[in-house]
């Protein structure tokens, strides 16, 4: 019996102690007519050996390609040590540190994580993680509504936000009667500042700013922050954590800094892995700490006065506050935070800056190479980070298909369905993992594909 240690003798003894004749007796409180028979569609069991072979075969079917897709998930090098340590049983198979004294490893690590995320974002407080960047944004919007004294239940969201984030935001806040208003972008791919000025002061609760935005373009975060502030609104930053090694942290945006910062932590040590598990991060100004959702770890002392770590401010959470909790979140993404904390420790600020810088340079170089091809041009001329929108002379989808099929190149994200106003636009990304030869390889392949038919 896989994963069940009981011997026949054990079973007999235990049933005897219970005073039950059989296993069936253990379920005698379940109405007999509800008991199900054998499951019909679950396949027969495989041994570990058989599953290994099955999964190696499946993995093999996921063809590897040379990847230039970003769009919210970024291929970065992860030091080998990160997951070798993260998957140690003591991290991997522990749970939420409810018994602090027996979980100081996880707790100290989370305290270190909170310290790193506040340092990176320039904020005062951090929680111990959310599910992912998109759901973290939804929680940030709800948090702003709770924090804002005279909330109008309206949030301004730029069109330059990741379209999938917009969908998730809608799905999560929809039931709470929060109006989501889209802000257009200008010809440079930046959020149109004037659109904000058209709103009356006090007419919206918060403004979301994505930096860099979905097109990889850098927003004028200072002006946007000040504009929102002038209207009495709160500012929520959605940021790529790796970019923060180069970019002004949200805590320093405009005159006051952002109020809440969130994003997806994936670039900090999570492999692409089909989209998850990643983790969302959430930091804020000190004033909003009691409106934060999720776990928070604090440092305290033990009976002997020795420092130690424990979950704190639990009165915010669902297991205490129930229907009045700041969120229904319980389990978060602890293991990914473990990886991220080790990842940030190994890379340090200098390492992250080099990763950010190399990614930026490679994307600039790739865009430069691609526009050498007749008919290919940049969509925007503004400075960016990490990603760039490129216009093709033909519909994007068949070009991407041809690149993937013949050359094994994953050429980027097709912008044309979410942003038809941009024409045949393609979002490309070249992180530090790409070599000059890779970039030329893409250029040559795209030229060949476009030359055909």
């Amino acid at each position, binding site marked *: 019996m896989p*994963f069940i240690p009981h011997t026949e003798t054990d*079973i007999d003894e235990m049933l005897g102690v219970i005073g039950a004749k059989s296993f069936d007796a253990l379920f005698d409180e379940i*109405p007999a007519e*509800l008991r*199900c028979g054998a499951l019909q569609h679950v*396949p027969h069991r495989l041994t570990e050996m058989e599953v290994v072979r099955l999964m190696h075969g499946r993995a093999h079917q996921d063809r590897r390609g040379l990847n230039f897709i970003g769009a919210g998930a970024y291929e970065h090098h992860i030091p080998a040590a990160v997951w070798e340590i993260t998957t140690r049983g003591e991290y991997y198979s522990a749970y939420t540190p409810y018994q602090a004294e027996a979980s100081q490893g996880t707790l100290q690590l989370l305290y270190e994580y909170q310290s790193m995320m506040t340092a990176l974002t320039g904020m005062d407080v951090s929680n111990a993680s959310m*599910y992912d960047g998109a759901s973290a944004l939804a929680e940030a919007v709800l948090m702003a509504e709770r924090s804002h004294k005279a909330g109008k239940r309206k949030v301004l969201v730029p069109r330059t936000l990741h379209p999938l984030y917009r969908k998730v935001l809608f799905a999560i806040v929809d039931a709470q009667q929060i109006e989501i208003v889209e802000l257009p972008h200008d010809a440079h791919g930046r959020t149109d500042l004037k659109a904000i000025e058209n709103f009356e002061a006090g007419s919206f609760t918060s403004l979301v700013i994505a930096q860099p935005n979905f097109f990889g373009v850098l927003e004028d975060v200072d002006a946007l922050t000040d504009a929102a502030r002038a209207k009495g609104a709160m500012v929520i930053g959605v940021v790529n954590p790796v970019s923060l090694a180069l970019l002004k942290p949200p805590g320093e945006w405009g005159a006051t800094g952002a109020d809440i910062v969130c994003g997806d932590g994936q670039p900090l040590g999570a492999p692409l892995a089909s989209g*998850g598990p990643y983790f969302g991060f959430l930091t804020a100004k000190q004033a909003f700490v009691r409106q934060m959702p999720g776990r928070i770890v604090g440092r305290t002392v033990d009976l002997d006065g020795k420092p130690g770590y424990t979950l704190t401010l639990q009165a915010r959470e669902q297991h205490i506050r129930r229907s009045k909790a700041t969120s229904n979140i319980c389990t978060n993404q602890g293991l990914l935070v473990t990886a991220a904390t080790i990842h940030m420790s*190994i890379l340090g600020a200098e390492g992250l800056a080099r990763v950010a810088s190399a990614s930026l340079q490679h994307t600039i170089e790739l865009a430069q190479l691609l526009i050498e091809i007749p008919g290919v041009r940049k969509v925007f001329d503004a400075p960016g980070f990490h990603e760039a929108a490129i216009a093709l002379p033909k519909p994007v989808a068949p070009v991407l298909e041809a690149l993937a099929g013949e050359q094994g190149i994953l050429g980027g994200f097709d912008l044309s369905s979410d942003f038809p106003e941009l024409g045949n636009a393609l979002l490309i990304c070249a992180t530090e993992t790409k070599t000059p030869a890779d970039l030329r390889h893409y250029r040559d392949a795209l030229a060949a594909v476009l030359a055909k038919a």
Partner: protein
Amino acid sequence: NNDLLIFERGSKGRGAEAQRPSTPADFTAVPEALRRKRAPALPEVSELQAVRHYTRLSQKNFSIDTHFYPLGSCTMKYNPRACNTLAMLPEFLQRHPLSPASHSQGFLACMYDLQEILKDVTGMAGVSLTPMAGAQGEFAGVAMIRAYHLARGDHGRTEILVPDAAHGTNPATATMMGYVSREIPTNAEGDVDIEALKAAVGPQTAGIMLTNPSTLGVFERRIKQIAAIVHEAGGLLYYDGANLNAILGQVRPGDMGFDVIHMNLHKTFSTPHGGGGPGAGAVGVSKRLLPFMPVPIVGKADDRRETADVSGETKDSTSPVSRLPSPVFRWLDEKDLPQSIGRLSAFMGNAGVLLRAYVYARLLGREGMHRVAEFATLNANYLQARLKDKGFDLAFPGRRASHEFIVTLKRQKQQIELTATDVAKRLLDYGFHAPTVYFPLLVPECLLIEPTETEDKQTLDLFVDALVAIWDEAKHDIAYVKGAPYTMPVRRLDDVRAARQLDIRWRPAS
């Protein structure tokens, strides 16, 4: 030295050179006004320092791999190592979530299979794997209930019923979905108070959220009656799958009359708890909720529907010399399900967790599913019987335990001041993680004990010995027990101070 923070181990200018790009950072492509001026205060350590620091920190944790961990309601069972190694094959790790289906057939086949397996196990008509934890699964479930009513033009349903023993996530979720939650009391035997339920239902009832077996560790015997009452009132039934481990292969939520269910795959399907996550909260629905499922879902490519193989064990996929098949599977999204409640994560939820759950499901197979519930229940009832025999008070002494059960220390508290916290802390010294304490809220000084099916009898017996010994210690020297733990890296921590003198981040000395 063993207690330093990673920041305190660093030195200015130190770094792990092999692990970062060799070219110095160039900030010039960033406009001056948008540039960072001061580097963030991250650690400056060598690779060895980081490895040593986090290896040693790990040793300060209790975990399933090192200790018996009978944390009630959390199903801390063994996480097979193969689930981890197989989910971390290079091809799986390298797959970008937006890769085309032609580059994703292996992954999609696993997800498709998992959907089919979960449908069978729960008795539901459809499954979506995207929710990233149980609470998000609950959210998805209540959102579907809401979408269902709204789609029928039924706008008057504003309440969600929740038994008082429910997980805190249930009422919290109802609130997030804009519902008012109304508590239904529990009777002395641990069942829902049917009269109170009847009194509470009405045209304002959107639905009821139930766990069965409940958090009290007993099976709700009149579930069919409850379903009838709620359905008659026009409400739907939501099944909180937190306790699915107790009934796997024995009774199916779909057969009990539930309309929607979430499953905690990190419990029942043994994916790692990871020090607090990631979880995975797949949802299953009855036929009437199919149109509302969250996307994406994996379907079959239309033109090849007849050739696909559910379990995926074609010769091709298992042969090491296999060739690439034509796409069989594809994503279903908003275009396929226009009434969907939408997306709950940017991509496909916690895909890597789902892969682990899939491997686990294949290892158990049809033959193993029902044994999970049988042996989880055997272990719980055995422990319950042994502890009762040793004089401990059960919260529901007349009932079968499900996969977990409750001991109440109300009497010990009154007689010798021994609290659930005291026992929990002292257990750590005996080498056992504590059960869940003070939940469910309605049982005083309670220990919610869930041994799971993967623990052996010898371990359970040692656990009984420890509880008996602690009670005995407390009789003789309660102060000593209240001083526990003594053998952990720290002694009992001051939680009040933690909340009052908030210290939640390290700051560099300026």
